[in-house]
């Protein structure tokens, strides 16, 4: 790790094809800043991206990266980190990617508490497939596939995470550049699974959950007396479904990452040229 890494070192030379004004620009800038700020560089960083407009993030960043199949980014990230705990692993995707097709992996990644960060760009819509309801869309949000609204309450990913035993739950807003980068940084620094739900507005298909809406609605937890180490307080805040918070909702300071509990402390990439020393013992066990 070199100390002179700047956040632009994490930028690739590919120009984003996001719509002008898309929230994902801000989300990405904050991720890059936070990575640089935490002393990482592109050669020790692995970014795994989901599928969606949000998932394109891996392409616009410069690091070791994999852009996988829809909904499966988290398991890839877990595999990377377990095979080489020296890497900084960050997983990013959309609300559809993470809470719909990948919802099962989300719960289990939370439970597993591998030391990595997970950034969900929540625009409450499916952007890349041109505007269908997502799991976080409002109950009455009209789209081409839900002309009268989804008629189901939106999922509350923070509540899912809390109930699954999350050790770090935060929420941020992509247009508040300073706070957003700080929050991502806290997620990276957390010893365990750092989950951040980012309000990252879609300016093309969502005319309800707009920048204006979030700007008015959002409350910065730093300006309240919220204690993120208090699980009950966190639960109350998370269950207030009509409130939009920014900041760390919950953090367990005693969190011990999964790979540490499993005793994995070095890269699995190094292997001998032949069978490992003493491998005949494996055969002798069958006597």
């Amino acid at each position: 790790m070199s100390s002179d890494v700047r956040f632009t070192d994490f930028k690739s030379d590919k120009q984003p094809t996001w719509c002008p004004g898309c929230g994902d620009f801000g989300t990405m800038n904050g991720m890059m800043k936070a990575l640089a700020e935490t002393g990482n560089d592109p050669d020790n960083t692995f970014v795994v991206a989901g599928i969606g407009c949000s998932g394109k993030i891996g392409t616009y960043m410069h690091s070791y990266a994999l852009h996988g199949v829809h909904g499966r980014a988290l398991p890839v990230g877990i595999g990377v980190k377990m095979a080489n705990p020296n890497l900084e692993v960050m997983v990013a995707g959309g609300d559809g990617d993470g809470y719909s097709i990948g919802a099962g992996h989300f719960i289990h990644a939370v439970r597993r508490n591998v030391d990595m960060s997970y950034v969900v760009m929540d625009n409450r819509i499916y952007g890349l497939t041109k505007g269908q309801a997502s799991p976080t869309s409002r109950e009455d949000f009209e789209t081409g596939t839900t002309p009268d609204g989804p008629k189901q309450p939106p999922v509350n990913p923070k509540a899912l995470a809390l109930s699954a035993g999350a050790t770090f739950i935060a929420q941020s807003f992509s247009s508040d550049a300073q706070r957003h980068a700080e929050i991502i940084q806290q997620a990276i620094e957390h010893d365990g699974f750092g989950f951040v739900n980012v309000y990252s507005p879609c300016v093309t298909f969502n005319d309800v959950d707009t920048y204006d809406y979030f700007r008015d609605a959002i409350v910065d937890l730093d300006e309240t007396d919220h204690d993120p180490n208090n699980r009950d307080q966190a639960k109350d805040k998370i269950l207030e479904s009509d409130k939009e918070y920014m900041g760390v909702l919950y953090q367990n300071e005693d969190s011990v990452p999964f790979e540490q509990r499993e005793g994995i402390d070095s890269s699995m990439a190094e292997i001998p040229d032949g069978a490992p020393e003493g491998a005949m013992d494996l055969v002798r066990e069958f006597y």
Partner: protein
Amino acid sequence: MPEDLNWAIGGEAGDGIDSTGKIFAQALSRAGRHVFTSKDFASRIRGGYTAYKVRTSVDRVESVVDRLDILIALTERTIHENEDELHEDSVIIYDGERSTMQDVEVPHGATALEVPLKRLAEDAGGAIMLNVVALGAACEVTSFPIENLDESLQKRFGDKGEAIVENNKQAARMGQEYVQEEYDQSFDYSMETTDADYVLLNGDEAIGMGAIAAGCRFYSGYPITPATDVMEYMTGRVDQYGGKVVQAEDELSAINMALGAARAGARAMTATSGPGIDLMTETFGLVATSETPLVICDVMRSGPSTGMPTKQEQGDLNMTLYGGHGEIPRFVVAPTTVSECFWKTVEAFNLAEKYQTPVFLVSDLAMAVTEQTFSPETFDMDEVEIDRGKVVDEDEIDAWLDEQGRFQAHFPAADGVSPRAFPGTADGAHMTTGLEHDELGRRTEDTDVRIEQVDKRQRKVETAREQENFDYREFGDPDADTLVLSWGSNEGAMREGLELLDEEGYDVRFVSVPYIFPRPDLTDEVAAAEKVIVVECNATGQFADIVEHDVLERVERINKYNGVRFKADELATEVKQTIDSDSGTQEVEAE
């Protein structure tokens, strides 16, 4: 043909059938006898018929036959289930004092030994040992020195304390003495012992052992019969070599975790069976386009859907060959014996890394649950070679950077294989994606780049065809008019079938094919034969279809899909009938 003895213990699931069978198999193996085991089991934990069968001989045994010499029947149903295999010299050991075994009818004039298993076990210290009493009785019938049992009882019960071991030894002796005293007849069976020291293991264990030997460090999987034993074997063991087994939440996760670990530089594997392979399919293409080395093991069972989870079938060949949308360069390797499960696993890891592709390691239930004896040198670890392919480190990376200093992880090399930089390598940072991409891993829809990358990935297969030896194994008479072809676990039954055929004057050449893709060119072999018969455990003849496709000629087929593996004598009869018939497709009737 080996001077063999066929032994079985059967009862209800939950009766300890498996562990009793294994104790006996281990005792035989320790006594220098070869063993080949098979299991009949149902998909339930308690109740339902289950049996553990052991074929043993001083010579090697490679298959099962349609004959049972000694049967320990813990339930009456066990006798009915095996009726067809019993004969006039068979000996059946059962507990005549059990109320449910009062009216047992012994078929085919076999000898019935009524041994009060439960009562004797209670005398020895507990009814639970009744199976061991039966083992002792079986030792007497076969003149097998009972001391050999002691060591396997020690191995099985050692953890539970010396008292338990001693009680079990005592139980065995009570069974032995009871037969000695109550039946003063001598039996036709005897089991010689030898000085040989064998190891006894099954196909799943051989795959797990091969994986560890080959440097696999990361295994992720989701439990499914009959692949779970691979996972169980590796759990705990791979840790000793710096690795980890992770039980994922489902197969989608399992294959993606393994993919992540492989990208981080670990040799990684996942194993599953049919339904799990279905779930993994979307990721096959990602493995191929991201050029990630990954071993994906499918231990086939009877399908489709959840089919018959505990029964044999070779129905997934097309799935592993063609599964996934688009066109996916890949290798499909199918071991043909338990020991080959070890060696082909080692090879699978080398192929995966040399060519940076998915490698499907296709095994089947018959191999997975078959324990076989081997001399330990069969798995000589000094023979294990590891080839990691084109991995570049800090010092070599310059050669692969473009003018702007960017690492070309998907460089369209002449042999189709690009350099590989493990994450953490300075200057190696790069993107990789399931989207079509350029040499830097950046998404593209440029028509020329698309063609370049597709061609590049396909070239790996051509390169492998040139560099590797995708050969077959050959048995029987090389000049025979009849050629039998098979893949997977049928090899053993067919090899023994050859000897039976030979005794009846039928000359047969047998080719067993362990590589499904790329595979050996069989055109000359087929052309040289008058009759070509493809043997496989599925209904439609998936391998026969690809042989026909390759050689542009019709072949005959023997297909078995009732859930039971081929038995040597049965297969020999089928082959004989096919040879004798003028033409047409022969099929084994589902029993």
